[in-house]
């Protein structure tokens, strides 16, 4: 079946989802296509830092000011996606105070509130910090849950008429003379192609922006920078911790619910899908950040991951950290003479709403529509609903009868009921979609136990039977899991790995050589 709409959005990251919601709120019909599931790119592969702007204050004051404004708006419209932890910029003896003075002044200029702390005051707030620190500056940093933020934007857009296709890739443009008149897309799971005609196509594909533009023979100057991160098994600090020095690799720890995320590295890459974390990157992050929090040396890690930042090149610089984290809105009619096509690229998670606003403002102007943006005032549908561990436990105790409290995931306490609710919503197309929408496989064992259980439950509900062999899905999952844990396998994590290997390769013999059905079937016939 082919579709017709006003605007097609390519990309289900924070920017695309923000645009879908903004368009819907202004009454403009749209269809969003996403190649994987929501946040499969940089939106889901970052540190989950709710910037106060402090990190950019010295070198990118414009980006810092954007952060200040958007931070305030997000706290209003999406409080349930945010943990207002506060943050510290810590000066170690080797950092000195030189940068600190400049930093405090730059924060003041950008409108970021700072409080200077003595080493004693800082240690009273965060006892895990290296006791040799010489001072700290408190700023209003926080943590943000990007997946919930994006899904809530989508949910709100859909409730107002937007249409969304996940696992659907844009494979070409519909042309109309010199212009673009829609897209050709392919449903990657059903393996079916269809078209969506539209007056406007918005390329919000993030790091994949040039891959989309190549379909029209275009490109924009963009650098790809890989950032690797490590997740700890426990939460190391209550606040975001930064080194108070010029931004560099391995200088920030962001707490997130029950864990902390160590970041980041910055490596120029050529391929968009550069998601491998090297063992030496993991060792580097552990070493650098153990200077800030010494306990890190003996901490257990549960996963490593990497994201690829799309950075728009404008000036003459080779240092990716000094490239602007600002964004660009490119009208390809003006740039290349191709009408109906707009690219929105660069930017940061925290400015996704602003990027959407600017994009839709531009479209409205072109369409001659006078519809003001309301995304800064209208709260997301889930605002006010608690999602903390405490909230979930209370919900479980009050709402689910004892006989049905079958906990599929022991690490993150995900009851079978929750999965059934996700399945009922009907948006789930493959295993990963379920993992995305619940806490399954996000805890200490990283799905080592619960995915077997989940697949068994799906087999029971006959959901996976026509989607392929559940043991193959399990093995694919274990391969993907492996990419995340291989870089951090030492200490306790390696112990757990021996357990998981013993289960799947040993006890369950999932080496792929002896297929049970075949062997047993053959014997049965004899």
């Amino acid at each position: 079946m082919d579709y017709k709409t006003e605007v097609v959005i390519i990309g289900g990251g924070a920017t695309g989802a923000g645009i879908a919601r903004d368009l819907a709120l202004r009454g403009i019909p749209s269809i969003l296509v996403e190649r994987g599931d929501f946040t499969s790119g940089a939106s889901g592969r970052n540190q989950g830092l709710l910037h106060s702007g402090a990190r950019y204050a010295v070198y990118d004051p414009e980006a810092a000011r954007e952060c200040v404004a958007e931070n305030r708006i997000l706290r209003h419209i999406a409080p349930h996606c945010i943990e207002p932890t506060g943050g510290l910029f810590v000066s170690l003896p080797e950092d000195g105070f030189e940068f600190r003075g400049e930093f405090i002044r730059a924060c003041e200029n950008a409108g970021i509130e700072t409080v200077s702390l003595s080493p004693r005051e800082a240690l009273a707030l965060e006892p895990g910090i290296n006791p040799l620190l010489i001072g700290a500056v408190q700023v209003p940093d926080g943590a943000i849950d990007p997946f919930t933020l994006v899904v809530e934007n989508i949910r709100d857009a859909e409730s107002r008429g937007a249409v969304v296709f996940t696992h659907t890739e844009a494979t070409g443009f519909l042309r109309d003379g010199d212009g673009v008149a829609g897209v050709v897309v392919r449903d990657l799971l059903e393996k079916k192609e269809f078209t969506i005609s539209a007056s406007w196509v918005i390329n919000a594909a993030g790091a994949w922006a040039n891959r989309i533009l190549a379909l029209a023979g275009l490109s924009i100057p963009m650098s790809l920078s890989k950032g690797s991160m490590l997740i700890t098994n426990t939460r190391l600090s209550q606040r975001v911790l930064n080194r108070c020095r010029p931004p560099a690799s391995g200088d920030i720890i962001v707490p997130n619910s029950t864990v902390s995320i160590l970041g980041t590295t910055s490596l120029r890459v050529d391929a968009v899908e550069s998601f491998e974390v090297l063992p030496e990157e993991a060792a580097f992050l552990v070493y650098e950040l153990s200077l800030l929090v010494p306990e890190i040396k003996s901490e257990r890690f549960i996963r490593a991951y990497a994201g690829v930042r799309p950075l728009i090149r404008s000036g003459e610089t080779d240092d990716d950290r000094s490239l602007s984290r600002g964004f660009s809105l490119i009208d390809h009619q003006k740039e290349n003479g191709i009408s109906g096509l707009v690219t929105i690229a660069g930017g940061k998670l925290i400015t996704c709403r602003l990027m959407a606003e600017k994009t839709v403002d531009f479209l409205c102007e072109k369409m001659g529509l006078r519809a003001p943006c309301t995304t800064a005032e209208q709260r997301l549908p889930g605002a006010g609903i608690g999602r903390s561990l405490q909230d979930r436990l209370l919900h479980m105790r009050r709402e689910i009868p004892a006989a049905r409290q079958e906990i599929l995931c022991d690490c993150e306490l995900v009851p079978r009921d929750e999965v059934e609710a996700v399945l009922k919503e009907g948006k789930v197309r493959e295993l990963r979609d379920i993992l995305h929408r619940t806490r399954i496989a996000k805890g200490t064992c990283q799905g080592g136990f619960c995915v077997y259980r989940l697949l068994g439950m799906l087999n029971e509900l006959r959901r996976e039977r026509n989607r392929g062999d559940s043991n193959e899905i399990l093995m694919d999952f274990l391969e993907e899991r492996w990419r995340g844990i291989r870089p951090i396998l030492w200490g306790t994590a390696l112990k757990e790995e021996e357990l998981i290997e013993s289960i799947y390769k040993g006890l369950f013999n999932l080496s792929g050589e002896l297929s049970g059905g075949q062997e047993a079937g053959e014997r049965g016939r004899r």
Partner: protein
Amino acid sequence: MKRYDLIVIGAGLAGLMAARTAVEMGARVLIAGGGMGALTLFGNTIDVLGRIPPGEDIAEGMSGFIDSFPEHPYARTGWEGVEKALDAFQELFPPPYHFSGVTRGNCLLPTGAGTMRPTFLIPATMASGVGMMPASTLVVGFRGFKDFQAETVSLHLRCRGAVIPFPRYRMGGMTAPAIARLMEDHSFVERLGEEIYQRMEGERFIGLPAFFGLREPVAAMKTLEAATGARVFEISILPPSIPGMRIYNRFHERLLQRGTAFLMGTPVSEAIVKDGRCRGIIVKNAPLGAGYQADRFILATGRFLGGGLWAGIERIVEPLFHVPVAQPSRRGEWFKGRFFDPEAHPVSQAGVETAADLRPLNEKGGIFLENLWAAGSILAHHQSIEEKSREGIDIATGYMAARQALAS
């Protein structure tokens, strides 16, 4: 301070087998274990060398294997050593709960993933799984018990599956040890048999999760067979393992009868070494520490999971004696790029290298300590997970280490 002929460090299958062997030889033995080892996690059947295809003679297969892998622990024991040790193991398990092989080779048993898995010796409660015919088999799982997914098993075995509620107990969080205790209750097992019988469509085999109780699993099986009229068998599940606990319990019971001292729950904190010999061990259980002396010591502390090996960020060490550990040169080489690479991850070959008599070697290739032997999975140059050789290595080297130690 009490003095022993032998102190076995590690209470997994290798350590238990070493202690049992020494006790049979009349030695006074202390066994010290931090936990119960991989045995109670994965122990179900006795693997010896699953990579030998079913139908082939395992003795012949083993000799070819030893030729190809001259550093493998089996090259130390030889097939004769394995066979003698397995006999000694089997002696511990008289009927009804006995272990037997089907032929001189491996046989295939269904698993909790619905795959077939090669193994050598099978406990009585799993024996019917070998002859199971998918077309006339029903695999039963239970609502509220998540560590066995009957529909996954039946889908892959191409047989029928059913998920039913437990009789009497309607709870969401049932674990295998809790159910194993219920299975000791005859009337519960009878009710269970009736519930299963009502779901049958003329099947002749019933596969159930391996939780038939710790004390009299064969009696529970017979009760279920009487109620259903079918052959009933246990299928391995996610850890912990009830059949593994049965093995542990049997050793524990027999060793206690023979006067072996058990020191369980706290890992050995320190070994006292002087003049090339180990003099004793210290177990610190704050606020107290206690020392134990012996003439001989066996190190059977397992791999990473058991605490026998510890991986720092860059190097793998043996934390108690600091025995040198053979290992890849750097962490980047510990693992293959793929989890299911056909070859084992190089780190699984890491471990303690020994002389022909199982005494660990020092850096120069000499004997590390005069009176220290090593047994079980801590030994280098095996791939027990891929080879399916975990229990065979434990039993054979535990047996051999004890005999070597007491012969000295």
